[in-house]
């Protein structure tokens, strides 16, 4: 274990910035004023053979440890010297499987509070990636020419953004609902067409819309049926009719008492351990 102060020593020369295998480290700071810096760990984006990826191979730079004040625009500005950038995407975690990439509505998916993130930066040319890998830094997020808002400034502007125009919201809702209604209508017409028409193997799909609606296929419904069956059976049973039944209920009672007794003993044991019996 090394005391905190001492670890500055070996970091003196920029060349020997330690970085995990395959990555290179780029120091990044908020502005000139800061003394210590964070490190971006970058490498070329690669996926295993055969897996799909939205980001083009060879063109994409994968960036780890992007500090919370660093936005997408800012990252693209910082990496611009390495080559033209097509897109920058910030994410909470490196995602392996591909999710949906549709644009998210600002009304329904408000931006989460940023923490440390990862970024996928797509360059126009593969040379951009290799240039970025050799970047020395330190990169400055906020400069005089491009000041970055933080603290009170940022919260005030965030608040201003949160007060948005209701009209825009209305328009968005309307367009969405129109599309949705259309989709539903299409599905319905399709279902209507298919109703009663056997498929290639001759099966006819039974739906809820027919003349005699069937039970919905939900778990709750099937549980209900089971429950009803059980009750029906229980009604027919005779209780305490035979001598053995009597014996068994008695035994059951005794077993219950024994179980309770064991539980109580355990409780007492615990209380004794906690000295719960010292009254004062």
């Amino acid at each position, binding site marked *: 274990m090394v005391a905190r102060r001492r670890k500055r020593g070996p970091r003196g020369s920029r060349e020997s910035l330690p970085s995990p295998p395959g990555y290179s480290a780029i120091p990044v700071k908020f502005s000139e004023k800061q003394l210590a810096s964070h490190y971006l760990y970058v490498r070329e984006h690669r996926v295993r053979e055969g897996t799909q990826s939205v980001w083009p191979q060879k063109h994409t730079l994968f960036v780890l440890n992007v500090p919370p004040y660093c936005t997408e625009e800012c990252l693209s500005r910082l990496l611009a010297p390495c080559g033209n950038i097509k897109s920058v995407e910030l994410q909470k975690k490196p995602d392996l499987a591909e999710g949906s990439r549709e644009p998210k509505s600002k009304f329904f998916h408000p931006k989460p509070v940023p923490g440390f993130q990862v970024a996928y930066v797509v360059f126009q040319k593969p040379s951009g990636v290799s240039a970025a890998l050799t970047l020395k830094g330190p990169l400055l997020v906020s400069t005089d020419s491009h000041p970055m808002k933080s603290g*009170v400034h940022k919260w*005030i502007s965030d608040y201003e953004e949160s007060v948005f125009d*209701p009209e825009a919201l209305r328009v968005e809702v309307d367009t969405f*609902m129109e599309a949705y209604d259309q989709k539903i209508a299409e599905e319905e017409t399709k279902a209507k067409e298919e109703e009663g028409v056997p498929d290639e193997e001759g099966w006819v799909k039974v739906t809820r819309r027919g003349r005699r609606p069937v039970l919905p296929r939900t778990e709750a419904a099937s549980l209900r049926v089971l429950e009803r069956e059980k009750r029906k059976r229980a009604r027919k049973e005779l209780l305490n009719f035979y001598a053995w039944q009597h014996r068994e209920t008695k035994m059951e009672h005794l077993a219950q008492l024994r179980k309770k007794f064991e539980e109580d003993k355990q409780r007492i044991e615990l209380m004794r351990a906690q000295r719960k019996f010292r009254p004062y």
Partner: protein
Amino acid sequence: NPSIGKLRWVLPGSAMGPAPAGEQLRGAAGEPEVIELALDSTGKKKTSSRKRAKAECPAERLLQPVKLSRAELYKEPTNEELNRLRETEILFHSSLLRLQVEELLKEVRLSEKKKDRIDAFLREVHQRIQSVPSIPETELTDQSWLPAGVRVPLHQVPYAVKGSFCFLPPSQVTVVGSYLLGTCIQPDINVDVALTIPREILQDKDGLNQRYFRKRALYLAHLAHHLAQDPLFGSVRFSYTNGCYLKPLLLLRPHGKDERLVTVCVHPCPPLDFFRPCRLLPTKNNVRSAWYRGQSPPEDKLPTPHYNTWILQDTALESHMQLLSTVLGSAQGLKDGVALLKVWLRQRELDKGLGGFNGFLISMMVTFLVSTRKIHTTMSGYQVLRSVLQFLATTDLTVNGISLCPSSDPSLPSLADFHQVFPVVFLDSSGRLNLCADVTASTYHQVQHEAQLSMALLDSKADDAFQLLLMTPKPMVRAFDHIVHLRPLSRLQAACHRLKLWPELQDNGGDYVSAALGPLTTLLEQGLGSRVHLLAHSRPPVPEWDINQDPPKHKDSGTLTLGLLLRPEGLTSVLELGPEADQPEAADFRQFWGSRSELRRFQDGAIREAVVWEAGSMSEKRLIPHQVVSHLLALHTDIPDTCVHYVGGFLDALIQGPKESSSTGEEALAVAVRCYDDLSRLLWGLEGLPLTVSAVQGAHPVLRYTEVFPPAPVRPAYSFYRHLQERASLLPRLDKPCPAYVEPMTIVCHLEGSGQWPQDAEAVRRVRAAFQLRLAEVLTTQHKLLCRATATHTDVLKDGFVFRIRVAYQREPQILKEVRSPEGMISLRDTPASLRLEKDTRLLPLLTSALHGLQQQHPAFSSVARLAKRWVRAQLLGEGFTDESLDLVVAALFLHPEPFTPPSSPQAGFLRFLYLVSTFDWKNNPLIVNLNNELTAEELVEIRSGFLAARTQLPVMVIITPQDCKSSVWTQDGPSAQILQQLVVLAAEALPILEKQLMDPRGPGDIRTVFRPSFDMYDVLIRLTPRHIPRHRQAVDLPAASFCRGLLSEPGPSSLMPVLGYDPPQLYLAQLREAFGDLALFFYDQHGGEVIGVLWKPTSFQPQPFKASNIKGRMVVSQGGELVMVPNVEAILEEFTVLGEGLVQAVEARSERWTV
């Protein structure tokens, strides 16, 4: 291992010494595995480390569900087992209770080994006493023979008295009392020894004018002098028999390591048949006024019942002993019962002092019940306890006394004679001695009250009745709502003169405290009337002093403390209605209330005498008893205001708004709730919505009266803000201080059912958004309210209050839950989103309305809940506990107050909150809050067993309500094990400090002491500038100066929406937690805190191998040739400043404790 050392902050230091119940938690938290649990963030690791924890320690502290094999469960029972089971069923309430009682008795009973040692000591004592040399006869007033090292343990006032004294060894030494009976209980073992004073010492008429008591005292003084020189005794001291100042006794303790083993109390008593019983009847006079007061008023022969009783007590020592030993002698159950009852009394502080309900009295009561066949000798200890409590609860000895005397001898005085001079009557077997002679009416009522409470508890079949009945102490400050200290006690002497209590003084041998106590409590009870349930008084503690000191005076016993149990219904009235002016009682009323009584004309035309107290707000009304007490004491007893220290409203200051000083916010909350009611009426009647509103429910702490600082109507000063005219909104300005914090109050609005809703989660959200927009439009056009709609809510400004209306669709949680299996079966599975929605739209409104109802039943709920939350937040732990969870803990104090009654003052409630939090075994028990009494006994049993089975999956703090029987919704996301532990430790520390402050008759000093947090344990302190703390003025210590927050002083309509929910410290904390939550914990008091405490998580500071998903603010360094990740602390510290630019004043790294 640095991590263990670091974790110590959650463990109480050895010096702190919290309540013993905290011990088990302390032990529990000591296991590093358990702590690790909470620190691990990933779910996977959690289970694995939990398993490890289980495997390593055999889980001795945690209850496990019992597993018995089939063979064990169903084996043939033995006869013995059946007998025991049957006995348990008949003699005890349950097997648990039986085991508990047995354990308790084991704990308090004297062991055989100790008994042998005590017996040996007693034999020695006997011998030593017999060998004390005699002295020749002298006059009683000539005490020059007394050696220098000893003082007479009696106040000889007046000194002159006839008679002569000589010392002879006692004619008989007998052990009496509980030790012989086997009913004495640990830890204080007292053995009473009766010394029979030889007949030669006594003379005729010694019963007169304290002569017997003088001789008794001299006898003890001589004895003490000789015994003190004996090396056998570790200490020889004087004390008073049950606090009676005329009857000193000698305390002998063994020498050396046995000093604490036993105390032998030596009581001298007269020889049998020395006093003629007929001379000592309660109607007889044995202290002449001519002697006592030096003058002879016409009514010279006023009876001296107490004086007579004290002599009779001495004569009856042996016969009582015989009676008790014949009754209790062979019946173990009765002895157990007496021991249990003694514990019961002691927990309630009823057994000590003059007029206390001591063990002797309770043994006699058992004897009485045996003689009336209410108790049978074969009964178990539990049954005896129950029968005695039942008897105490249902009889009234102040009206119908009882007697152990079987004969109906006409020469004996009747019970009525006793009732005339004693408040409580319980005669012994001679029919002449009232065993309860010193018991005051209020002490008896207190016993009665306690017995009633205990019976109710036993009848309710509560699971933990034993714990509550016999294990929970009920100190006065926690049991009573308000406390009054009278100090100095010498004031009572003047009060006695004012109340013309000379005969009583004569009777009590000058003990003005006892003499004044009865009339004083009667006076106050009459004055307080319907405002109090019960008025109890403390009994002065029994002093003990060295033999070379003068006996302590009455005023030395410190303070007389009164406890008031308020009746909330009676508190609201500011009026004391008297009789009509022309009736004869009017004069009495005027005399009683003095100048406060005035003639008033009432609406029905009657002209009556009345007293009106000045009290506007609820908190002032709660303190009317203060006015009553000081007024009556000053008027009738000459005790000035300065001697009355009323403890009831000290904590109110902490929940008063920065500008309020007369109200604790109940009124402001009521205004907000009224405004909400108006708004909900508007919503109900809205026209033009596609679906009509079917229900409006509140879901905000204000709407259940538990918001610490109630909202005030706002009217923004426009010049203070930037305007966003087209959206009718105000924005904060950079060049101004942060504007006032306005938190919108959430309301959930349900719409009528409809089949038109889409069945897709995303589409439902869009439709809901459309409803929000429409709602805003309709409210604006129809009611001219300022509205602002977003996708999830609509903010409405009404009368200066801002409400946030959320439209809810009942089926939405279900839609979110639907999962379609590959076979096409639709099943419902909880998802985080569905749970959150259900919590917000279903459970929260239900809880809010239930607690709103609770507030209507118990007016103190609001203030207690707010005080409790205030304290938790002031200790910087507010973030760990949801608002609802703390509200529920407080609700438990009201719904399950046993063994207390529901608190009626913030003070009592807060103390009990601290007690509950610090002693509750969160690990092994769920806190069940049975709102509206909806859970049945069977369900409760089921919940408990379900809890045990599922313990490992449940959160550390489990709170069960009728709406939420399984999952403990409100504590799901916290607190973590350490935060809860920290709270427990803090509560255990705060409770004794606060109780001591409140019980200090000189005043509590700084009441905010327990509310100030300690910053010692934090690694980094982030200091914030007050300019950007909108709630700066809510701080525990009101800041000397703060900033203008852009509000106009008088409320009025506003056409622009004020800035809502803008609290820079909270925004900053959210960012910090998001960015560095893995590395550190952040602590802050949202009510005006100026400092954020940061605590590094020790486990995160362990070097870790590189992992792409876990880099978060760490950096890679090579350590020993290996590349590992460590937190980049320096950069992070600078980032604290960067993220909070403008808000952060300084970042102080206080320790170099982290190592990398």
